[in-house]
């Protein structure tokens, strides 16, 4: 077919505007894969919310009774699992008695994995824990905020059995626990609904639970207005996890992954800038 001589030859900016999305995909892949091969240590500035969270956890007396609500699933694990691991390590160091539950069915299974990782840390090799005495995993219960509402008055009937099917009255740790008022503190790791919002509304505001939260990056901005009286600390996304690992003294996977995160953020910004330059350049030409 003959070329139309009146048609403008596409310039660099036109080509940039029509770039195949797969080219962008390749850039992103390379940007995230390459940093994984390097072990670069980066300084991570701790944000006020994570500092508050760490301070709040440290204020809980050694041996205190702490509730861990693990409300997330595998897709959110890269950001939330490091938070759970670091929180369990702090709990092990402070000899907290731990009650683990989940409002997401996958939560207690993720908690098991995080707990195992935490106990494998060489610093806790001398710590002897007995299931049912030092910690219990009560598993998942259906009902979203209804579960929290019921826990406010009666936990044993809310969770009649633990995650392995053992009746709660056979677990020594559960003997003295009646309702949420018995807990000194609570750590919530949340990926959405039900999660931090419901725990704040029912656990903190209704039943006076002192709580902190680890949230996915996507919902961090939505949870930020609660920080203060309602939420004693908040770690958001992988950055929040890395900050908590740093401030608590238990560096882990989140700090390692922050190198890739840095490169990815820069790449996205570069893409936005190039996209805007190309857009305004082509618009100007079309307008001319």
């Amino acid at each position, binding site marked *: 077919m003959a070329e139309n001589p009146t048609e403008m030859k596409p310039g660099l900016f036109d080509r940039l505007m029509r770039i195949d999305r797969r080219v962008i995909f390749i850039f992103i892949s390379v940007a995230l894969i390459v940093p*994984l091969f390097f072990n670069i240590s980066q300084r991570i500035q701790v944000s006020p919310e994570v500092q508050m969270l760490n301070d709040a956890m440290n204020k809980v007396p050694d041996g205190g009774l702490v509730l861990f609500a693990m409300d997330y699933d595998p897709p959110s694990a*890269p950001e939330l699992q490091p938070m759970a691991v670091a929180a369990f390590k702090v709990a092990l160091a402070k000899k907290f008695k731990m009650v683990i539950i989940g409002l997401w*069915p996958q939560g207690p299974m993720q908690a098991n994995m995080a707990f195992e990782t935490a106990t494998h840390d060489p610093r806790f090799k001398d710590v002897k824990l007995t299931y049912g005495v030092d910690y219990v995993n009560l598993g998942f219960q259906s009902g979203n905020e209804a579960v929290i509402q019921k826990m406010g008055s009666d936990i044993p009937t809310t969770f009649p059995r633990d995650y392995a099917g053992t009746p709660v009255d056979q677990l020594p740790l559960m003997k003295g626990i009646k309702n949420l008022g018995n807990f000194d503190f609570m750590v919530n790791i949340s990926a959405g609904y039900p999660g931090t919002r419901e725990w704040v509304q029912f656990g903190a*505001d209704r039943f006076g639970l002192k709580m902190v939260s680890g949230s996915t990056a*996507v919902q961090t901005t939505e949870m930020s207005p609660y920080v203060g*009286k309602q939420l004693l600390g908040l770690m958001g996304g992988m950055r929040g996890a890395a900050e908590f690992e740093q401030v608590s003294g238990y560096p882990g996977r989140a700090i390692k*992954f922050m190198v890739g*995160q840095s490169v990815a953020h820069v790449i996205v910004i570069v893409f936005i800038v190039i996209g805007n330059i190309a857009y305004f350049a082509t618009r100007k030409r079309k307008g001319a």
Partner: protein
Amino acid sequence: MWMDHPGWVLFGTWVAALFTLGIATFLYKDNPVYKFCEAVFVGISAGYWFVSYFWQTLLPKLGYPFYAGVKTVFVGPAEWGWLVLLIPGTLGMMMLLRLVPKAGWIARWPLAFIVGYTAGLRLITFLQSNAMTQLQNSVQPVVRYNESGQFLGWESFNILLVTVGTFAGLFYFFFSQEHKGVFGRVARVGTWFLMITFGAAFGYTVMGRMSLLIGRLDFLLADWLHLIR
């Protein structure tokens, strides 16, 4: 434990890696391998939820107490408290009748129970935690001094910023009056704060999505290929 056997570990890792790559083929274009993995995901997810809810909720909260109650009637001493479980059990069965086209309307009863319960709880909690407490947090003394009585300009400015931003944002959401004149100008300032909020949310969304991808790449490179530690 059988699944700790190196052969099963290796097999599991390969299955996981192949499913990971299968889903990732969608990046090139929609294809039969992706569709197969997607179908497996849908089926496995539905089955996972079905099994989890059976063992963790329906059995301990309905099945076991019901069985124990019925047993007392035959073995004695008879207790009748379990009869109340017939209500949620029946409501649940009514919910399942939605699968039968002609009897689907019966599912409205359990649905009404769920709607009523959720609405009743949310009405108060949202007003208390998300409206009243937030208003209270936004209406703070704006002029701040330190312990020695020195005026804290920057802190005072920040508190004023939050107060102004919150109320200007609320003006924007007030749709029963036209956004004109002073009202319109305040609402416009509100949109600036909302834009900053959306920008921050976007920044965090990028962070979140990249984190998930880093997690999968780490699995492929470390657990499957052993290229990194």
